[in-house]
């Protein structure tokens, strides 16, 4: 299936490492992709040094949206929150290692949107104003 359904992504989709919930998350956020009903919920815990100590996601949606969430959480766990805040779209796309058209891009980036919503402490429905265009 070319690079879009690379083994890597299918693997994270079929056997996610970070699907689930946390006991005492510092941050919780969720959002949808209205074009396809993708839904993601994320929980992030941060230790006393400001390092992401644990994270989980839950939700439903296409392989890309769910695998992207799993891959993203794998990447950020153990990193300082301040560093995670700098994590960009391009960083995520590099991580996924695929090129995407504008529609599938939304699937892939939902995970980042939800993560940012969580760690910036947004309320449901709020969105970041400094979001890149």
């Amino acid at each position: 299936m070319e690079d879009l359904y690379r083994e890597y992504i299918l693997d994270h989709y079929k056997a996610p490492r970070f699907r689930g919930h946390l006991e005492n998350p510092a941050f919780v956020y969720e959002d949808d992709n209205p074009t396809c009903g993708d839904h993601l919920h994320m929980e992030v815990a941060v230790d006393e040094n400001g390092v992401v100590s644990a994270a989980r996601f839950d939700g439903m949606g296409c392989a890309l949206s769910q695998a992207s969430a799993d891959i993203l959480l794998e990447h950020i766990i153990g990193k300082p929150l301040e560093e995670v805040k700098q994590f960009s779209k391009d960083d995520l796309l590099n991580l996924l290692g695929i090129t995407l058209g504008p529609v599938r891009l939304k699937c892939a980036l939902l995970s980042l949107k939800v993560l940012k919503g969580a760690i910036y402490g947004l309320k449901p429905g709020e969105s970041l104003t400094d979001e890149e265009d």
Partner: protein
Amino acid sequence: MPNLEISSILDVSRIRADFPVLARETREGVSLVYLDSTATSQKPRQVIEALADFYLHHNANIHRGVHTLAEEATAAYEETRARVARFIGAASPKEIVFVRNATEAINLVVYSWGRANLREGDVVVLTEMEHHANLVPWQMLAKGRGVKLEFIHVRPDGTLAMDELPRLLALKPKMVAVSGMSNVTGFQPDVAEIARQAHDAGALVLVDGAQLVPHAPVDVQALGADFLAFSSHKMLGPSGVGVLYGRRALLEAMPPFLGGGDMIKRVTLEGFSANAVPYKFEAGTPAIAEVVGLGAAIDYLNAIGMEAVHAYEQAMARYVLPRLQEVPGLHLLGASLERRGAVFSFWIDGIHAHDVAQVLDYYGIAVRAGHHCAQPLHIRFGVPATARASFYIYNTPEEADRLVAALYKVKEVFA
């Protein structure tokens, strides 16, 4: 041999030759199978040439010019209005308002007729299968002024629960607004019967014809439609233009919607008086070239004949439906063969619709994935999204076979 039966209805290979895009490949060695005409149809050469011809030879603004190009452009625009009127059996071209799309047509009715006629406690009847275009505008109006929306529900087989209608009509609704064909299940309700009952109960009837008009013969009188909304881009015509049909007396009684040039008779700093219909509802420079292109699309459809279009799609539906049902784990939204167009929305156990569409795309097959702007209908069936394959006059049984074969590949990838 169903293929033979089907191919006797339309000369599809001749039709396909008119649609240059169908010859393209989505990537090297993979030819396109376009099964997304419910979202937007492809355009025949004749339409593309009509657009180019307009811009190359006659382009001008309309109505307000006396020079040669302006007269030519105005004539082309107004002749299309007359052609649209004939196409749907309207009593007069004055009943045809050009807008952007079916969505704007419905919004026009809601903003203009709705605000003038609906008061707190009034009821509007819709159905559970409506496209957001025939739901959200009513919700926006209803919320502000305490209008109640009531719904005819959808049965498990995708048909409407017509037995609910008498109870809803007993509420004396002012309006019954219903889709002529669902863009998800392909179900084509008996609009004429709904309209008959609705009129008996004193309600007006708006028909969302976005899917019906491209796929079946439509006569607004026989249908009993007081308003009919549809889009050029779904019926072989250009994007950027749609039609609102409205009975003349209704249009004349309605207040204007958008203000600006052309919709006025006289303007001073203190106020304005509105122009006659249909101009009253066409503020500003319309989609002139696109209207002319719609005229070419109607000519094209007329040359085939809408009866033949409809018959071909019925035959395709009979061909496709059982083959889809054979795919293990595949579930259709609306599996009835009665009163349906050739559009099929389905989900496959354990595989998200996006992933179905993505893998199909790998094999050159263009289907849509999502809620198809009919989220309540998806909620009713308990799925967030489906994949949708839709067939038009240029699609063949062989393409349906390619779809079915590729669905087995989808299942392999996600096994």
